């Protein structure tokens, strides 16, 4: 029984990155007096919400051995769809929110079909969507931003219930927990690991590999849609340039969290740690007034170090 309980709560692959995150927090706490405070912690949580929502979908994509380069552009398309439906389409905002999220899901389904039926490599299919969705996001308003959201909408991101939790933050937390449960305890989630480990083995074992692929990209698109809505609430506007290069941060977070780009390995726990590492780094370096250019270098180094430690550690083990 003890073994079962242990397996249930086992930290899995995320152990190393988690230690890294703790170390990072210790270092920043010593370097900056502002870092270790409830207010700053909430700031960090606020800043990582959008990235975190995207990373949930990306985790599933990377576990099946794929990649989704389109999430930043799909986010922009969804956020513009939202504003456009509300302002030019005259839809009530709640309906527009649902449709915007579905628009993101539609982009994901297209990627999934291009990969499974069209037999494009995921890199190429989602690269095409990266370009296409960005174009669509700009076409809707000819490249102009949309403002004029009602007050309740921006309050989704700004008002902190129970003193700390905004609605967008709680959406992220709930989705992360659902994702964790799905990947860890649901048959469908476990199948994703088999597909990423070796898709031919999975297929011969009777797993529906194509269907799972379509679902995973659809899911990633839906989450990009959710992230687009959350970003609109946070910025109180929709920008066609939103989410530019977010796909790279998202992939970085997932990889830092211990997932392997060759598939079959990774998890929601690791991804969340990866998202926090990026969030804490940005926040801490900002507090220390490090220039954004240097920050980019630091994040690059962290990605390289995290993955290197992971592969070196694995080689030593076997």
């Amino acid at each position, binding site marked *: 029984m003890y073994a079962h309980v242990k397996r*249930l709560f086992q930290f899995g692959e995320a152990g190393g990155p988690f230690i890294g995150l703790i170390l990072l927090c210790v270092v920043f706490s010593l370097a900056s007096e502002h870092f270790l405070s409830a207010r700053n912690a909430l700031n960090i949580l606020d800043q990582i919400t959008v990235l975190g929502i995207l990373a949930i979908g990306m985790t599933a994509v990377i576990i099946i051995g794929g990649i989704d380069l389109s999430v930043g552009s799909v986010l922009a398309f969804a956020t513009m769809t939202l504003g456009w439906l509300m302002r030019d389409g005259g839809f009530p905002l709640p309906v527009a929110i649902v449709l915007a999220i579905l628009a993101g899901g539609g982009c994901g389904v297209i990627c999934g079909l291009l990969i499974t039926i069209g037999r494009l490599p995921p890199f190429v299919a989602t690269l095409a969507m990266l370009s296409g969705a960005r174009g669509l996001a700009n076409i809707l308003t000819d490249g102009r931003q949309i403002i004029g959201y009602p007050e309740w909408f921006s309050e989704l991101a700004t008002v902190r219930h129970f003193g700390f939790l905004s609605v967008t933050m709680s959406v992220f937390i709930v989705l992360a927990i659902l994702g964790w449960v799905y990947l860890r305890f649901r048959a469908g989630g*476990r*199948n994703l690991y088999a597909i990423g*480990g070796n898709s031919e083995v999975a297929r011969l074992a009777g*797993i529906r590999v194509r269907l799972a692929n379509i679902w995973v990209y659809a899911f990633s698109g839906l989450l990009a849609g959710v992230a687009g809505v959350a970003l609109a609430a946070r910025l109180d506007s929709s920008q066609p340039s939103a989410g530019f290069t977010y796909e790279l941060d998202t992939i970085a977070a997932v990889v830092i969290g211990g997932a392997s780009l060759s598939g079959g390995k990774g998890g929601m726990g690791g991804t969340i740690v990866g998202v926090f590492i990026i969030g804490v780094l940005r926040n801490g370096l900002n507090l220390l007034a490090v220039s954004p250019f240097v920050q980019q270098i630091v994040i690059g180094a962290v990605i390289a170090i995290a993955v290197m430690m992971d592969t070196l550690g694995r080689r030593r083990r076997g």
Partner: protein
Amino acid sequence: MDTESANRGFSARGLGKRYVQTEVLVDFGLDVRPGEIVALLGENGAGKSTVSSIIAGVIQPDSGHMTWRGRPYAPAAPGDAIAAGIGLIHQEIRLLPDLSIAENVFVGRLPVRNGVVDREKINSAAGRQLRRLGLDAPPSCPVRMLRVAAQQQVEIAKALCLRSKLLILDEPTAALGADETDRLFSQIRRLREDGVSFIYISHRLDEIPLIADRVLVLRDGRLVSQHDNAQTPVHVLVKEMVGRNMDRIFPERDAPQNDVALSVKNLTAADGTFKNVSFSVRRGEIIGIAGIVGAGRTELMRAISGADSIATGTIKVDGKVVRMAGPRDAVRAGIVLVPEDRKLQGLILDHTLANNIAAGNFDIFARNGWAWPGKIHDFAHSAILRVGVKGGPDQRVGELSGGNQQKTVIARWVSRSPRVFILDEPTRGIDVGARAAIYDMIAGLARAGAAIVLVSSDLDEVLGMSHRTLVLSRGRQRAILEGTEANHETVINLATT
């Protein structure tokens, strides 16, 4: 043999090679005169490819020496053999499909003029060799566009461009039809006129009198006979190839039950690799599928288990037709496959035994789709105990021995109690000691009421394990032999003609 022509040709004396426990080649000698075609015969594992690998510099012998054109010859790498004018043409074609014929012929040593590849030169040089072989494709044509037979000619053209004077052909006709085989033979004869020598390795005994000048027969790594006349009757060659003592012990076979578990009728592959195969297997019965490389055995197994599509024909389990859109349908109908290549098709080496065994089985143990880690662990644990895998559920499959890996693939399926097990080369790459455990397990599955279809390149294994043996040759079903009438001679005769 007169010494002068032997000096100009190839000669090997006392070649030996052993791996950790097994001697794969013992005191082997061979002479090939210029313009001579020597056939090398033997069953799988007789040592034929060891000989060709040594001569081509792929592996080095532990003992013995070779001479080539009057000089000592000891290639340390394939490049040395190529430089000396000895080329090996593998049974699997190793060309770069997206490059042109000419580029493939010159790959690794493309001539350069003014800093760019001299295409005119390679096209004309390759074109010359292609004409010599009678292949009428333009040298700039990508290899992908060629049929298998033509690709093989490109391999030969490549060897000829390297000025090879001795070509080793390893099963060159395995993937060829009758017409293409004839064409290949006339090319070989034409090259022989030019003084090119050949070592010709084949399973197809009916070809030997047509092409070879002399015949050597290998068995268990030893040269058992030499015939200076290739007209030696096939049955004599077969006797020499298989004349080993049957010292391997296979488990007892119980009598099969009466009800038919699997029946296959007029099955034809979508890509034509096999045609009109019909057979049925009763519960508790083991049917062996025998045939040489390229006979369509694996393709037939993949079709029955839904991995590849079929053009026509029906597959029934317990009398009910199974509609196959993929392996999933086969698994649900009770047909499971233990595939040919366990590392690439059977297992995820980087994952644990528990995850490997659970894969594909959530439908039977994950209630409402919940796959709790404890459940996965228990499911795997009981399968591990049933099959006798030496390993724990949390261990990585890659750490297991070959035999235990193969058992893990079988463990994935035992809990489903499938009606039909399809075992494709279940003992490939597994050492002899561990094979007995696999044989016992297969016999146990049959005893428990499963129908077993067993494919193996090891004929002893097929004959020792099966109640009946189906012989395939070039995609055609030649016969289904009852246990009493199935022996090496009849099977090899059917499989190679």
